[in-house]
């Protein structure tokens, strides 16, 4: 082998190791690097053999050092590994893991989104003389090796839309999907559709794709990862990371870093550590099913034995999913278990990678259960024993009651009313004839029609009082109304609004400028008092409390402070209420509690509320009084709520429920990009803002300054994200109207 080439290779390897260590200095590595550099390869005095021998020794030493360093890698080092230009990319995997592939949906920069790569690939298995060709749909983010146009694997909405399109194609063709996740996060862009909308749609649709989905995480950053990662089996590269937000982003939020400043390095390290982003952490918490071991310091394109391992793992994962729902499978399952010890053998089992209709249903049910079970220990269940028993009983009684009430009684009632209608219809015809005859007779006899007096009395009598279209506001007075001062509308200069007295504005006007309709912030209690019928709000699961599943330093204290400040146990309040007599279930994300961020407790409460609504056959209102996104301190425990809650929404909607989402104040990120954004009926209160990422995050990640009205509700309306913008005082009326006019077949109150 050419000594020169070997030297260059070694130099590259050492340099790579140096890159990975980042700001940290390793003396042994430095020494080795300089030694390799000093190694003479073409000096006349030494022979070629000797040079090679020297290099051989150095290579061995480098190998040892790499193995040693690999053991000391911090989470932040792993972040540097996945971001390194030499990191294996999807193209490498397609070339080396699959036997054949065709890239579809664009080629290189000639693609609607070059960061999203779609390929039809083949896995060929030979078992004895038999050859099995398995077509699969490979989707995933392609970072390339430093190619600009790939945008670092940060996907624009249309890229996710493309992925969804071909995943649906896979479902139609009944072939498995292999999704390779390698993205720092979605590109925060509001368009037609916006990033949040598209991710929400992806998650919602993937929950119902009737083919096995295998996700393989290399870099799993936030919503961008979830857009393709809702899978039956989730594998993860041992040097990858999977997190709710990049460590830098988390540090910027944690350290309250503003415009243009960078968070300190040690804070970034700390965030990386405590967000539990590594493969081991995610495996331990159950968010991924298996880890694919990489070579020391991460896989690079030249690690051919890694491709082989990856191929085995991917094939086995797909086999396991298929066998987990297939019919005749006992023997092969056992064989699989046996072969686990000898991974190379797993190629030699015959498993067809398509499913029949029944297996598809089982697959979906299994997928749902899988996600439903996740993050169960990530919140604090502070319910008393009695509450738990009560809830368990309700879980049995309510469905039984619903079955009788809606399955049996309703049908009987319907039959009777129909019959009664028929009879009255007949009577009407007869009565009409008699009346006409009577009138004719009266006219003939020229008798005066003396009902004028009666009519007059009717027309001047007091009519029955009507139900107020919005609540009387009794029982809640905003603390903002207390001071004796005048409030100036922020749009006063543009619209010429006069100043309004605080007590009028926050009392009678419900926080709405009487001149231009600008909505001031209003506490969630106002909605409880004014939107729902008087005294009808019954909270449940209030003792499921937010915790600190990642052991994030000092976070308990902050949670306790939030509990004390708001008197709530989590940012999600779930309750049954009635609205003009219609019973409904509502989940409210409350901005006062840690910015309305969604963690494990909030997600769990949301899901339980949806299940409750489903059991009770009630419409469901998801009211976002403000949410900042997924709670970053909970890491993937929070992030996983996106697919979990979205699957619950899908289940509820498919059962015939009506799912209405209402946004108020500021709603951003995770929840909007999943369980809120997937609703077909989304509305926003005036003057609210909603979208994928706030202005600060957009500036941080893209360097673009957005216009001030970028996230305004009316903009969201014109982008098609929401279906209407409501005045706060009309919420009650409009909700009632919605309940009466929209929704699925299963709404029994109509």
């Amino acid at each position, binding site marked *: 082998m050419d000594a020169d080439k070997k030297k260059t290779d070694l130099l590259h390897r050492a340099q790579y190791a140096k890159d990975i260590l980042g700001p940290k200095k390793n003396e042994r590595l430095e020494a080795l690097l300089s030694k390799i550099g000093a190694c003479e390869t073409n000096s006349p005095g030494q022979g070629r053999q000797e040079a090679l021998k020297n290099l051989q020794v150095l290579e061995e030493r480098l190998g040892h050092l790499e193995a040693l360093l690999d053991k000391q890698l911090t989470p932040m080092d792993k972040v540097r590994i996945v971001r390194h230009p030499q990191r294996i990319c999807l193209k490498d995997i397609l070339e080396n893991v699959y036997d054949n592939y065709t890239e579809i949906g664009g080629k290189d920069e000639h693609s609607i989104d070059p960061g999203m790569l779609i390929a039809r690939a083949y896995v060929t298995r030979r078992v004895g003389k038999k050859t099995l060709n398995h077509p699969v749909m490979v989707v995933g983010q392609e970072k390339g090796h430093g190619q600009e146009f790939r945008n670092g694997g940060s996907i624009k909405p249309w890229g996710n839309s493309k992925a969804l399109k071909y995943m649906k194609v896979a479902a139609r063709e009944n072939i498995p999907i292999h999704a390779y996740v390698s993205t720092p996060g979605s590109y925060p862009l509001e368009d037609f559709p916006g990033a949040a909308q598209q991710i929400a749609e992806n998650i919602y649709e993937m929950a119902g794709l009737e083919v096995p989905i295998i996700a393989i995480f290399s870099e799993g950053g936030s919503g961008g990862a979830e857009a393709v990662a809702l899978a039956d089996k989730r594998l993860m590269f041992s040097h990858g990371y999977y997190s709710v937000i990049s460590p830098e982003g988390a540090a910027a939020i944690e350290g309250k870093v503003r415009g243009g400043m960078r968070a300190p390095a040690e804070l970034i390290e700390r965030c990386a550590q405590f967000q539990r982003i590594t493969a081991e952490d995610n495996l331990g918490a159950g968010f991924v099913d298996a880890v694919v071991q990489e070579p020391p310091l991460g896989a690079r394109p030249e690690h051919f034995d890694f491709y082989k391992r990856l191929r085995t793992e991917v094939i086995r994962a797909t086999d396991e999913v298929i066998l987990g729902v297939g019919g005749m499978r006992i023997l092969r399952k056992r064989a699989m278990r046996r072969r686990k010890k000898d991974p190379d053998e797993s190629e030699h089992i015959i498993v067809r990678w398509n499913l029949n209709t029944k297996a598809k249903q089982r697959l979906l049910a299994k997928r749902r259960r899988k996600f439903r079970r996740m993050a169960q220990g990530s919140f604090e269940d502070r319910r008393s024993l009695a509450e738990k028993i009560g809830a368990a009983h309700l879980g049995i009684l309510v469905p039984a009651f619903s079955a009788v009430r809606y399955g049996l009684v309703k049908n009987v009632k319907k039959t009777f009313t129909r019959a009664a209608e028929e009879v009255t219809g007949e009577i009407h015809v007869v009565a009409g004839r008699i009346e006409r005859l009577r009138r004719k007779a009266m006219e003939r006899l020229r008798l005066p*029609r003396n*009902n*004028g007096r009666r*009519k*007059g009395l*009717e*027309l*001047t*009598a*007091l*009519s029955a*009082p*009507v139900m107020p279209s919005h609540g009387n506001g009794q029982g809640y007075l905003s603390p903002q109304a207390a001071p*004796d001062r*005048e409030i100036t509308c922020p749009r006063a200069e543009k619209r010429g609004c*006069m*100043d309004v*007295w605080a*007590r*009028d504005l926050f009392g*009678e006007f419900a926080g709405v400028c009487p001149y231009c309709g600008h909505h001031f912030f209003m506490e969630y209690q106002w909605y409880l008092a004014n939107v729902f019928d008087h005294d009808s709000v019954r909270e449940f699961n209030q003792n499921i409390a937010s915790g600190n599943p990642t052991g994030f330093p000092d976070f308990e204290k902050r949670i306790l402070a939030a509990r004390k400040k708001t008197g709530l146990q989590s940012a999600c309040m779930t309750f049954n209420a009635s609205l003009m007599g219609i019973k409904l279930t509502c989940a409210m994300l409350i901005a006062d509690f840690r910015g309305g961020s969604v963690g494990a407790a909030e997600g769990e409460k949301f899901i339980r509320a949806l299940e409750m609504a489903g059991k009770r056959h009630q419409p469901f209102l998801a009211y976002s009084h403000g949410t900042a996104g997924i709670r970053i301190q909970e890491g993937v425990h929070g992030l996983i709520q996106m697919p979990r809650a979205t699957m619950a929404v899908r289940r509820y909607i498919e059962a015939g429920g009506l799912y209405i989402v209402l946004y108020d104040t500021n709603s951003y990120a995770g929840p909007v990009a999943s369980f809120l954004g997937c609703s077909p009926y989304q509305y926003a209160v005036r003057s609210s803002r909603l979208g994928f990422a706030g202005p600060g995050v957009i500036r941080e990640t893209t360097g673009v300054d957005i216009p001030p009205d970028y996230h305004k509700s009316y903009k969201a309306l014109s982008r098609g994200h929401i279906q209407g913008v409501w*005045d706060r005082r009309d919420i009650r009326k409009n909700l009632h109207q919605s309940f009466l006019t929209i929704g699925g077949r299963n709404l029994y109150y109509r």
Partner: protein
Amino acid sequence: MARHRILIANRGEIAIRIMQACQDLGHEFVAVYTAEDAGSGHLDTARAMGGDRALARISSYSDAGDILSLADEVKATAIHPGYGFFAENYRFARRVAERDRPMTFIGPSWWVIRDLGDKINTKRLARRLGVPTVPGSDRAIYDEMEAEAIAESLFEFQTDQEVKRPTVLVKASAGGGGMGIDEVDDMARFRQTFRRIRNYSARLFNDEGVLIEQRVFNFNHLEVQVVSDRAGLGPVHFGTRNCSVQSLGKQKRIEVAPGFFPQGISYSFDAAKVLGDIVDHSLSMAREINYDNVGTWEWIVGPKGEPFLMEVNTRIQVENGVSAAIARLRGENAVNLVREQIRLGLGEPMGYGQQDIGFKGASIEYRIIAEDTQNRFTPWAGRVEPVSWPKAPWLSLHTHMPAGRAYQIPTEYDPNLALAIIWGRDLAEAKARGLEFLDGLSLDGRDGQDVDIKTNIPFLREKTSTLLEF
């Protein structure tokens, strides 16, 4: 009794009358003016009575924050809204009473203003008490079927009553001042009109509610002057007045007290009974809601003498003087309702009952306004030369035109010039004196385009001769 400092938050002749009343009652006052209004006569009066201390400039007569901070500055203890912007604004009244440095709002309590300020609420209250109201809906109708049913019964009712041209009014419940209102005289066109008004209302007022009522033609517009105090010793009335002579925009031009003259004019109905009825109804309503200041119950009386309550004005009105002119308290001279209002508003007891109030003679009030009555009552703005007003014992004149210098009518405000109240022993004498007054009046002025002043004096003269005939 405590000495008050009253901030007078209005302009024009009422400001002057309030100042005079304050002086009579021994209270201090602070008058306000805006930059555009600096030539008004009420500044002169304020200076003459209270010096420069009694005068303050504000940015606008309708800026509540400005007026209240001024009130704090001058340490006012009470605010008189005149009959302007704030007089029927219960939020302002409530704010005055409930702010950190509360003051007395001279007028009814704010909840009374709120309850009677809403026409629908007033109508429902009236119906609850059996007070007659215009046939039709007493709440906003949203449902088309319901609306059609009401309209149909209204047509049927009018046909039975042998109304000449049965007509139904369709109006936006959130509207007012003639906006979003239309009439239908044919059931076939009702739905179309209903939808148009509903859409108009939804667009303009963000509310789809529509009211449906009978349209009453050829009616007399009558008012009952009610006075009551905070002690709740029972409301009294200061008679009725007839305000049927109005401009195109339904603004009153001539008022006559009392409302009907059963002795002098022959009516097709029992006029005395109608007057008694409306007074009784007004007082019973005032009693029911604990009315506690000066107020006016507005009625329309149809061609067959059927009274309908229209609305309640919870304030002193421009035409208060015409009722005051015929009222005699314990046989003495005419009462001053402006003074009564301040006295009662500051919490004093009334000190008299209905039995102490008598009535004598007839009275006519003219509103002299610079406007073109031939041309849709278009306001005229310009410079008016000093006027030498006629003087007579039977005449009382209220004007805010400065004495002895020309008056530039500000374009920002109404071009009202003066109020003239004429008293006579009977209607004929009052009419004759009124004509005499109008004949003796000459106003001179020019505007920027050198156009001569246009006033409604010819219109007033013409209407006087046919007054109260119908």
